[in-house]
């Protein structure tokens, strides 16, 4: 840590030196409180809002006319909806991983990215949550999947992974929301105190829940935050494990695999970090946050991408090997179809995106190049979407009896819904950036203190 070269991300500080409590608070809160709504913001927000309108329209169409407007069919009865659901849920994972796992592991570099990573989680899970509801044939009866008291004493069927899914995703959303909100409270108080606008003071005041910066507050707050982190950490593992069981529980070749839970979790963190980078890199440029989101963050995310990418690659390899080793003609038939069948291009593309591309991250120079990192992160996002597409669609299209083999193609409504959720995500994100501190102010102040202390210690030992 002694030789800090700005060119090397690995050694870069988690916050540029020279910042004081004041400068941190000023810099971050000014984005919310004093900065004008720029043209860029309006364009971004407008695009997001447009996407949201498309989503609303697509949903209306779906409810009025029926699931048939999508491309789903027999045998591919699950299509874009489930692909997108898994993709969005996966994206959300990085947020929880950063806030909970890295918090527990006391990784100080997480501080500047955890807030918006959490927000990303929240919005991603919201986007994900749209799909399983809509993909029901009769979405208005979605509550039958929950155990609610009813006169017929009917309960959900506990053997079905779809019921576990309801609980897993529901829990995940709740915990993510609470965790994110609790993390926001001290900053909301800061905004309350600094806001020059009456409405701002009232709204932030209510949201701040009477935070007075008292020592007791801080003591309880830290306890609660750590406890929630403890709760959230297992969710990183459990949610995507359960989601993977939606597939692994079936006996369909290509789904029926024991490797799915760990492989899905790794894949989720993989895609989540890719999304963090995809968002963080433009964000730091746009709002001049290079001091807070430093090369160190990007570098570390790159390393995590490499590790999780390798786990995912192992998953592919293991699946392929087991299909061959089992001697099961159906499993092997599915594997061969991935290489030779109608979805061979999608499969080849996902191998390129998810296995080949991350290999670039072995190089430190690549990890420190912001532009290349951004491109890689986008490629990985695409690759992980393709992965889910191949798992869901290809496996279904090529099952046991050749008589039922059929290929799937999405319709305009599938695309509209998918693009619509991206719009919703973007819109939420822009609102979040504008109205809430995208970087945790109090944690950054803490970081300033810690860094200063560390430097002081260095000086003392010198």
């Amino acid at each position, binding site marked *: 840590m002694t030789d800090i070269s700005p060119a090397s991300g690995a050694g870069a500080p988690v916050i540029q030196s020279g910042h004081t409590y004041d400068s941190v608070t000023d810099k971050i809160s000014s984005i919310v409180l004093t900065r004008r709504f720029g043209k860029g913001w309006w364009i971004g927000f407008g695009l997001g809002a447009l996407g949201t309108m498309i989503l*609303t*329209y697509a*949903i*209306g*169409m779906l*409810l*009025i*006319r*029926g*699931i*048939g407007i999508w*491309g*789903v*069919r*027999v*045998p591919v*009865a*699950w299509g874009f909806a489930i692909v997108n659901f898994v993709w969005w849920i996966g994206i959300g994972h990085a947020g929880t991983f950063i806030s909970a796992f890295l918090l527990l592991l006391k990784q100080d570099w997480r501080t500047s990215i955890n807030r918006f990573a959490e927000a990303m989680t929240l919005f991603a899970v919201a986007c994900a949550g749209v799909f399983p*509801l809509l*993909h*029901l*044939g*009769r*979405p*208005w*009866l*979605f509550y*039958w*999947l929950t155990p609610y008291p009813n006169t017929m004493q*009917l309960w*959900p*069927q506990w*053997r*079905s*992974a*779809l*019921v576990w899914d*309801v609980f897993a995703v529901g829990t995940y959303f709740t915990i993510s929301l609470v965790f994110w909100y609790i993390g926001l409270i001290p900053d909301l108080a800061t905004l309350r105190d600094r806001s020059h606008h009456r409405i701002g003071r009232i709204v932030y005041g209510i949201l701040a829940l009477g935070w007075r910066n008292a020592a007791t507050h801080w003591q309880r707050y830290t306890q609660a935050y750590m406890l929630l982190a403890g709760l959230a950490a297992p969710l990183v593992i459990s949610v995507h494990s359960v989601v993977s069981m*939606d597939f692994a*529980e*079936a*006996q*369909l070749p290509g789904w029926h695999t024991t490797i799915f839970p760990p492989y899905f979790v790794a894949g989720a963190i993989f895609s989540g970090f890719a999304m963090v980078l995809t968002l963080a890199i433009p964000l730091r440029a746009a709002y001049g946050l290079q001091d807070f989101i430093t090369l160190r963050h990007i570098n570390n995310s790159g390393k995590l991408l490499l590790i999780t990418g390798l786990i995912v690659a192992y998953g592919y390899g293991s699946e392929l090997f087991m299909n061959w080793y089992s001697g099961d*003609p*159906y499993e092997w*038939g599915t594997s*061969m179809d991935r290489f*030779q069948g109608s979805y061979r291009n999608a499969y080849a593309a996902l191998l390129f995106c998810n296995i080949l591309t991350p290999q670039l991250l072995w190089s430190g120079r690549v990890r420190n190049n912001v532009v290349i990192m951004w491109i890689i992160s986008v490629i990985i996002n695409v690759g992980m979407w393709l992965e889910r597409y191949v798992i869901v669609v290809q496996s*279904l299209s090529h*099952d*046991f*009896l*050749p*008589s*039922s*083999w*059929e290929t799937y193609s999405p319709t305009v409504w599938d695309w509209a819904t998918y693009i619509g959720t991206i719009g919703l995500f973007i819109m939420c994100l822009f609102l979040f950036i504008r109205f809430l501190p995208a970087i945790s102010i109090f944690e950054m102040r803490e970081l300033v203190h810690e860094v200063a202390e560390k430097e002081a210690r260095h000086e003392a030992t010198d």
Partner: protein
Amino acid sequence: MIDRCPHHHEEPEERLSAPSSPSPGTPGEGRVRALPQQPTSSISPTKLLPLPYRVPAQRDGKGGGEGVAQNFWRSFEELTQSPDFEKHLHREFPPDASIWKDGVTRRRFLALMGASVALAGLSGCYRRPQEKIVPYVIQPEQLVPGIALQYATAMPLAGYGKGVIVDQQMGRAIKVEGNPRHPSTLGGTDVYMQSAPLALCDPDRSQVPTNRGNVATWSGFDNEFRATVERFGGAAKVRLRLLTEPVTSPTLYAQIQKLRKTYPNLQWHQWTPLSNDSARNGLQAALGRDASVIYDFSKATRILSLDSNFLQDDPGSQRYAMQFIRNRTVRWKPETMAAHHEQARVNEPYTVVNPLPSPTEMNRLYVVESAFTISGAKADHRLAVKPSEVQAIGRAIAAEVAGTATALAGDLQQHAAFIRAVAADLREHWGKSIVIAGDGQPASLHQLAHTINATLGNVGQTVLYTEPVEPEPVVCLDSLRDLVHAIHNKQVDLLLIVGGNPVFDAPADLDFAAAVETVPWRAHLSPYLDETSFHCQWHLPESHWLEMWGDIRGHDGTVSIIQPLIQPLYSTRSALELLATIAGDGATSAHDLVKNHWANVWKNDVDRRWEAVLRAGVIEGTAAKTINLPAGQTAASTQPATSPAASPIEISFHSDPTIFDGRFANIGWLQECPKPITKLTWDNAALMSSATAISLGLADRDHPELANGKMVELKVGERTLRMPAWVHPGYADGVIVAHCGYGHTRLGRVANGAGFNVYSLRTTSAMHSAPVTVQKVEGTYPLACTQNHQLMHGRDIVKTSTIANLHEHNAAHEEEPIALEGEATEHGRRVKLSIYPEYDYRGYRWGMVIDQTACIGCNACVVACQSENNIAVVGKEEVMLSREMHWLRIDTYFSDAGRLEDEPAQRAAGAEVMFQPMLCQHCEKAPCELVCPVEATSHSFEGINEMTYNRCVGTRYCSNNCPYKVRRFNFFNYSSPEPSLAIMRNPEVTVRTRGVMEKCTYCIQRIDAERTGRKIEQVRAEERGEATTMRTISADMRGKLEELPATTHLTACQQACPTEAIIFGDMNDASSFVHRLKTAAEYQRIHYGVLTELNTQPRTSYLERLTNPNPALKIGAAPASPSARAGGAA
């Protein structure tokens, strides 16, 4: 969520509006009640007689009953005065009939935006129309709502009748079954019979007469007809021509005779596009007189078909199919379906007579054909050739049989082995073989076939000649040609076309449309306002056969009475009524005409016999008389060969296997029914081999399937037609096969625009095949195929074996243990497949066995299931998205013999096709059940995998996890809200709404109906102090099953099957056939389940497909291994 049961809606209201006529039934006919009289029709009170003998036994009340007609549409006169009339007319053509129509207007956009705010819940509810429900003031006797009554009647098709029994609920025809007493069907059915309820209720049927395109009345027609006759010089002078379909009906013929007296200048013509002209001519040449021929396949062990699709196209096909399969399957069955039902009732345990016939005893079928028909699919040896080559092969075989063989011509050399082997095999089975020629072949080949039969001693044994079944047999083509000729010579004043659609289906060179336009006055009676009606001044709506009186002969001449189940829904007349009116008999009802005709025949005891005949459905002893030929009368084959000239590419015209000659083109069930073998729906195509497609430049060697859907231009003579190509295995190179009947322009919403009109290529000189030039043209056409992969890829799906192999195998593995349900054999012992204990079924335990040897792929079961279970038609676009709803489908697989690498002859012959009816397997360990989050699909205590529609939220996970993919999902609200379709729906089965999964239930409604009926029977018997008539439980089951009556109920598919390929029953009942097939040692070598390695433990299981190839022939023979492993990954 909304379980609309449409059957209780408008009915009572309608009933009130029907004029209540007092029953004029005679005192002796206590149970017979009159139909309400139609105000303006001349129909006098008529009687409907139910069938005393029911199939299945439980489904009706106590035998009696009467027809209560539904007067949905009053007469036109009444309607014109009613303000509802306009509304009624518009109701028939709802503005947005198509649910998958795209396109969004601005207003719609706003509506949707608003709707999406409301999100869910909105589409879950809508206002239902207000309905008045008024009960009967006086309950009609014997009419019990909810209990079906059965009536025997007959379905006419191109002049010949097939006996049926129709289920009727509250006056509505719900389901058609075969009449086991009818000689042409023996209780079997075909797709056309099964589709009758939809044909009756088709909203596109024409409902009123039209005069020059305007709505008119029947009295208007009658007046104008009389006036026109007067205009042309009165009845004595008028040159009236009558054009009908072939007529076998005795009463109709009597009416025509009467007409001839009234109108001395009357000329009668008969025309149907797919007639048996050449068969008639050939037989005439062979016997020197008019005759009909019937075959007895039950006595035939060697069959040679020369381009004949006798399993499907003959008026007696169901009988032939059953007889053919009886000599083929290794399981024993009672003589007929009727016997089967009675057997079940009187508790005679099934006995195995000859479980394993020797290869000599089992029949063997050789087929030489140009198309790929289901008969070819059942062949042990099939030779696909050009239509022009059939004759030469037939001659060569005849020469071999007669022992006068000379060296084969060059072209025939490649078939030399086949020709010799067939001839030798036929000779070895003297008197026990059949040589049958197809209608598409010239008369000379038919004559040749009769000669071979005579040589082989088959005449009088398996081939029977009878007096002609038709009273005045004609050669249809000559008859129509005469008519057109007469029209051109201005010899026709009035033309009355009764049935048929000659403008659509007449040979193109006759240009019937232009000719008919020149007739001064013309009228057309038909069920639709079709192409012919369009060219006539008067269109007269024709009654459906379910709403008319008549009589008709079967393939052997046996007469059936056609009796109505319902008063005509619309203002229609039958052919008989129309001719009677014209003949001046208008005052007599059709019922009386028919009855009087038979009264004249019977002389005495008329009422009793009439009633008996109506109950039985057939008039015994009316079969055509056999002609006893003096030995050697059959003409020797002196006629010179008249083989058509061969050409590089030939086109062969065939009747369509689902819409016949085009008359069923507006029936959605039939349009959506996948054609046997090709699995195409909604269209016809130019079917060809891959080599043909490659040679035409439509595809390359690696991907011949790329030719599918590419447009080609077919040129026959000067006529051209553009239609899409479809590549399929099993066609001879250089042959294009085209099915007729598509390409309607004016029939109905379903038919119009579907497919391509092949009749436009047919000319009088080329009625069945012709040289054709084929040119690739720009463009493609989407074709909806329900099965795109027809190779098994090495998977054991359809197991197939030869009878010889089976003998060997049985001898070799005598002591091997037999794996029972839920077990496997490993190292000579049985092991349980599941660690969980099996459920103990104390009551019934339903199961099904499907005999793949017996399945001929005719689709009767598919349509029967659709009719029984209210299965929706989804339309071509949805089929292309593979969203068809059939609960039962027939998977068709090809062996991979006959690949492109093979020699052409080998390639065509080697495409062995296997049918596998695939429906819910009702797995004991059902993969669908555990993945449903709301438990909408679950196992019943009788082992049926049940589907609770109300509980289903539509996650579709069950479908994903079903290895058989037999679950069907309502992606839209497929069930049409068309009011006229509501009356054909089976009230016992829920009509499913959007978002719900559905699938085969083993016809659980029939099980429950029988259970209820049996219980009532039991209680009543006990009340009377009688012993129950029910089957006693066999000793080993006693104790466990004390309370249970044995059952005889049949699933809809089982009942429809003409070859008894489907066997359903109680596996817990040791005397049941299903139990026997599933457990008895003699079947264990051929009994198997599909995908049992997944431990789904399906309770629908299969019997291996057995063939009996000639050991002397290798090419095209069934694979030698017990299970055909089709390798490769194409």
